[in-house]
C-alpha cells in the first residue's frame, strides 16, 4: 500500500491526520456549504448585510416552498426527467447492441467502426451545433423534448459503445462458442447469454448517462427555448431572473436542481465509480 498505512506511523502524525482530514473536507466543500447556508436564510438577513453570521430565522421550508410552489421549477424538473430517462433507455439499448456486435464478432471493419464511435464522442459540441439545430428544426422538433432526446441518444451512443464493447470483450468467449456448438441462434446468444451477464455494465452506464444528460446545458439552450421543453439546467436562468438578487431563493433553487444526480450518485455509488473509472486499471 502507498502511502504508508497510517496505523504504522507515529502517534502524533496519526492524530494530525485525523484532525486535518475533516478540516480539509470543509475547505473543499466551502463554496457548497456557503450556498446551503444561504438557502436557509431570510431576505431580512441579506437586507441587513448579515451574510455570514447566524441566520436570524430558519427559513428552510419557506424558501424551498417558494421554489416548489411559486416558480416554474417543478415543470423544469419534470422536463429534465422526461428528457433524461428516455435518453438513458435509448442510449443503453442501442449501445448494448453495437457493443455486442463489436465485442463478439471478428470482421474487417470492426476496429474502424469502433474508432469512429470513440472519435465522435470526443468531438467539440460546437462543430455539430449548426447542422443539428437545422436538422431538428427541419424535423419540426425544435423546442420539444423529443428533439433533445434523439440527439442525446445518438451522441451518447459513442461513449456507451466504447464502454459496452470493452465490457463484453472481457467476458469469457468460450461461453459463446459453446452456445454456437449447441446450435443456439446468434440473437439468442445476445438475449439469453450476453445480456444477463451485462447487468453490472448496464447499471453503471445508466447512472453515468443519467448524470451526464441531467447536467447538460449546451444542447438545452441550443435546441429548446421555453418552459414547455427546457430542462432544469437551462430553466434555472429564468428562475434566477424571476428572483433576481434574492440569494436565499436562488440558492435553494440551485440545490433543488442539483439534487437528482447527487441522490443517484449516493444511492448507486459503486456502479457510478465502476463506470467512471473503467480503464483506469489494466
Amino acid at each position, binding site marked *: 500500500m502507498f502511502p504508508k498505512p497510517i496505523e504504522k506511523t507515529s502517534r502524533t502524525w496519526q492524530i494530525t491526520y485525523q484532525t486535518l482530514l475533516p478540516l480539509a473536507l470543509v475547505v473543499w*466543500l466551502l463554496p457548497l456549504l456557503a450556498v446551503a447556508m444561504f438557502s436557509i436564510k431570510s431576505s431580512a438577513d441579506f437586507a441587513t448585510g448579515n451574510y455570514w453570521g447566524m441566520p436570524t430565522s430558519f427559513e428552510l421550508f419557506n424558501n424551498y416552498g417558494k421554489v416548489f410552489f411559486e416558480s416554474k421549477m417543478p415543470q423544469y424538473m419534470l422536463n429534465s426527467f422526461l428528457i433524461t430517462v428516455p435518453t438513458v433507455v435509448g442510449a443503453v439499448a442501442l449501445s448494448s447492441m453495437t457493443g455486442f*456486435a463489436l465485442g463478439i464478432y471478428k470482421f474487417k471493419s470492426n476496429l474502424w467502426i469502433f474508432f469512429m464511435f470513440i472519435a465522435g464522442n470526443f468531438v467539440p*459540441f460546437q462543430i455539430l451545433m449548426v447542422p443539428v439545430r437545422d436538422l431538428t428544426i427541419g424535423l419540426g422538433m425544435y423546442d420539444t423534448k423529443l428533439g433533445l432526446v434523439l440527439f442525446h441518444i445518438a451522441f451518447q451512443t459513442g461513449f456507451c459503445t466504447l464502454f459496452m464493447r470493452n465490457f463484453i470483450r472481457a467476458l469469457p468467449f468460450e461461453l459463446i462458442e459453446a452456445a454456437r456448438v449447441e446450435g443456439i441462434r446468434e440473437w439468442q446468444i445476445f438475449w439469453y447469454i450476453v445480456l444477463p451477464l451485462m447487468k453490472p455494465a448496464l447499471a453503471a452506464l445508466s447512472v453515468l448517462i443519467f448524470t451526464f444528460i441531467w447536467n447538460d*446545458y449546451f444542447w438545452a439552450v441550443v435546441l429548446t427555448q421555453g418552459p414547455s421543453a427546457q430542462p432544469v439546467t437551462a430553466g434555472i436562468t429564468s428562475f434566477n431572473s424571476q428572483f433576481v438578487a434574492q440569494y436565499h431563493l436562488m440558492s435553494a433553487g*440551485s440545490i433543488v436542481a442539483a439534487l437528482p444526480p447527487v441522490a443517484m450518485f449516493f444511492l448507486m455509488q459503486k456502479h457510478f465509480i465502476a463506470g*467512471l*473509472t473503467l480503464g483506469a*486499471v489494466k
Partner: protein
Amino acid sequence: MTSLTAGSTTPRKKGWYARNEIKVTPWLFLLPGILFFAVYVIAPIFQSFWISFHEWDGLGEKTYIGLANYERLATDRKFEVSFWNNLKWLFLYLLAIPLGLFIALLLNQKVWGIRLCKSLFFFPFVISQVVVGLVFSWFYLPREGLLNAVLVTFGMEPVNILGQPSTATYGIIAAGLWPQTAYCMILYLTGLNAVDPEQVEAARLDGAKGYKMLWYVILPQLRPATFIAFVVTIIGALRSFDLISVMTNGGPFGSTRVLSFFMYEESFSEFGFRMGYGAAIAVVLFLLMLCFIGYFLWSMFQDEKEGR
C-alpha cells in the same frame, strides 16, 4: 454432430440468413446505432465544414463566400482573445491531474469514515456545471461572497475576481478545476487500489520511500489512470462553455470568451444569426481538438494491438 447430419439431410431448408448468420448478425446489431450516430454526429461534422464557406443567417439561402469567414477570423480581436483563453484553459486545467493525485494519496488510508470522506471529496463532480458556476459566482461576490469575507478576516483587501478582465478567466478556471480535480482523484484512487503491494514492499526493502517511491514505483503503475485523466481533462478544458456562460457571459469586456463560447455568441448574434462565421470558428476548435483526438486514438490503437 447433430447439426451436421441435419444440415446434410435437409440442405434446402437452410435459408440465406441461416447460412450467413455469423456474417450478417453484427451488421444487424450495428445498424440502428450507426444510423443514429451517422445522422447526428458524423454527417454534421462535414456539414459544418461546408457551412463555414458560406454566409448564412440560419433560415434563408446560403451564399458561397469561399474562405472569407476564415480571413475575417484572422483579423478578429475577439477570436484572438478566445484562442489565448482556450490555451490558458488547456494548461491550467491540467493542474487537475497532480491535484487529484495529491488528494488521492491523502485519502488512500483505512481510517474510520474514510469511505464517506472519499464520496464527499468526489461529490462536486456530480453537480451540473451550471450549478457549480452559480455557486462559485456567489462565492466570488464582492460584497456578499464568502471568499471576500474570509480575505477580510485575514486582513487582506477584498477582490472582485469576476469583475476584472485580468482575473475573471482565472476565477472561472478555478471553478472548473473543482469538479475536474474530483474526477482525477477518483481515477487515481481506483488506480492506487490496484497497485501491486509486493512491488511496493520490495521497493521499501531496497530503501525507496517518499517521492522516489512515488516517482519510480507508484506512478509507472498508475499509467492507465493518468492516461484517462489526461484525456478527460483535455476534452473538458476545450468543452468549457457552461461555466463561462453562467458566470460572466463572456464578460467583462469579452475577456473570458473561449472558442466554444465565441462560436455560440456569433451564431446567435443579436445582429442577426451568423451561422457561417460560427461554423468557421467551430472548425478551428475542431482542428485544435483533432490533434488531441488523433493522439488518443493512436494510443488506444497501440493498446488494442497488444491485446491481441
